[in-house]
């Protein structure tokens, strides 16, 4: 593997890891709210969260490019504050990936939270557990399968991102050139050996990742009261 390909690999892993952490922090409260609320607005929120599942990545990529660029609402605001706009930057990619992978974090978590049910939480409350305590010592352990699935799918989905990155990335080595783009470039330049190496590696790694998760999920099966 060339040093450029190694760089693409580390950029991909970094992007996926950062996106997963950001989404864990943002997605957990959204999923919790969606699982518990009786507010009718939640249907709208749920639909918005699921949008990236059905939209072509180019739609998201196009809007992100326009929004993050110097003339867009996000990039323009940053520029007027004397900061740099976010098109073609790693931060911009994290932002785009966060939107792109949002449903992969929120939906498994929401289902897991919904499955916990009211009773365990009420019991914990009668034992004087504070809300935060109830969440972290009752809900989180009971939802670990959901967390495992959400984290893995978010990570893997971000690794597999192509269309969005193509639109807002700009193919900068070490910053926005990820594996999927490197594979595309190798294939276009007819360097099939390098394309095979990366594509085959990604295929095997993705399978192993999903296989491990499903294996663990089976073992972690929680017996519900």
């Amino acid at each position, binding site marked *: 593997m060339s040093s450029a390909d190694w760089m693409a690999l580390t950029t991909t892993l970094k992007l996926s890891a950062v996106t997963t952490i950001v989404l864990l922090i943002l997605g957990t409260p959204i999923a919790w709210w969606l699982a518990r609320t009786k507010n009718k607005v939640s249907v709208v929120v749920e639909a918005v969260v699921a949008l990236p599942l059905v939209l072509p990545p180019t739609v998201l990529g196009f809007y992100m490019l326009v929004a993050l660029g110097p*003339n867009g609402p996000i990039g323009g605001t940053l520029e007027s504050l004397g900061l740099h706009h976010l098109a*073609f930057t790693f931060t911009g990619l994290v932002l785009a990936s966060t939107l792109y992978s949002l449903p992969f974090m929120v939906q498994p978590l929401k289902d897991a939270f919904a499955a916990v049910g009211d009773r365990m939480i009420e019991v914990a409350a009668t034992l004087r557990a504070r809300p935060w305590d109830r969440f972290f010592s009752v809900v989180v352990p009971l939802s670990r399968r959901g967390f495992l699935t959400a984290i893995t799918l978010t990570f893997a989905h971000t690794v597999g991102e192509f269309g969005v990155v193509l639109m807002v990335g700009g193919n900068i080595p070490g910053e926005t050139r990820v594996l999927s783009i490197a594979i595309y470039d190798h294939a276009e330049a007819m360097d099939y050996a390098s394309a095979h190496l990366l594509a085959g590696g990604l295929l095997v790694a993705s399978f192993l990742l999903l296989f491990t998760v499903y294996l663990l999920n089976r073992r972690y099966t929680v017996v519900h009261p």
Partner: protein
Amino acid sequence: MKLLRKLKRLAFAILVMAPFSPAMAGSLTIAAAADLKFAMTEVVDTFRAARPDDKIEVIYGSSGKFFTQIKNGAPFDMYFSADIEYPRKLEKEGLTAGSTRPYAVGRIVLWSLKPELAKMALKDLPNSSIRKFAIANPQHAPYGLRGKEALQHQGVWTAMEPRLVMGENIAHTAQFIDTGAADAGIVALALVLSPTMQGKGAWTLIPDAWHEPLEQGFAITQRAAGNPLAKDFANHMASEPARAVMRRYGFVLPGEKGK
């Protein structure tokens, strides 16, 4: 039963009507380099005028991608590459019907929405306010490679490298600049001369002595060997109406001298 009868009647109608439908109309699918995005559409219009029944489709993308796709059996009848070497390679592998023909020599320009940036000399670019500079990926896009050569010729490639953003093809690169996401960049003259881009910012022609020529060529693919429309279109490329369009888009034509 009623449905069955209806279906029978429909099948009969199709059988009877088939000879009268424009069955004689041909169809032609062209894979064209992204720099032809606007010019080829107009050339096809001039071709279509005389044959309204024929179905002519043009797909735009990077020359390298089409090369790989045709090698792997893509259903294209003609291949217009931005680099004549690609169709020549196909020809060597016996994947074309007949020989590769040159159709134009392309030119590159420095383009920016900010006129003061577009008017700069390439060698001054590193000292400009440019933060993101767009070129097509030199790894597989012919216009990207020529842009790289021009920057190298002017001795600023290394200095500009950290600021480069790369488009998948030359139209994608133009889009980076058009949205303002990249401050400036090197694109095809044919693109900035198109009606959609005209009047947006400013551009400066890059001397063609600074890079290898962008010799563009086309070929009829093996699968279209028996397609008369492909031959007609190949001849049409050499006709005056087609040449007039190409000239208007800044291409230097075979047998002519450029500016």
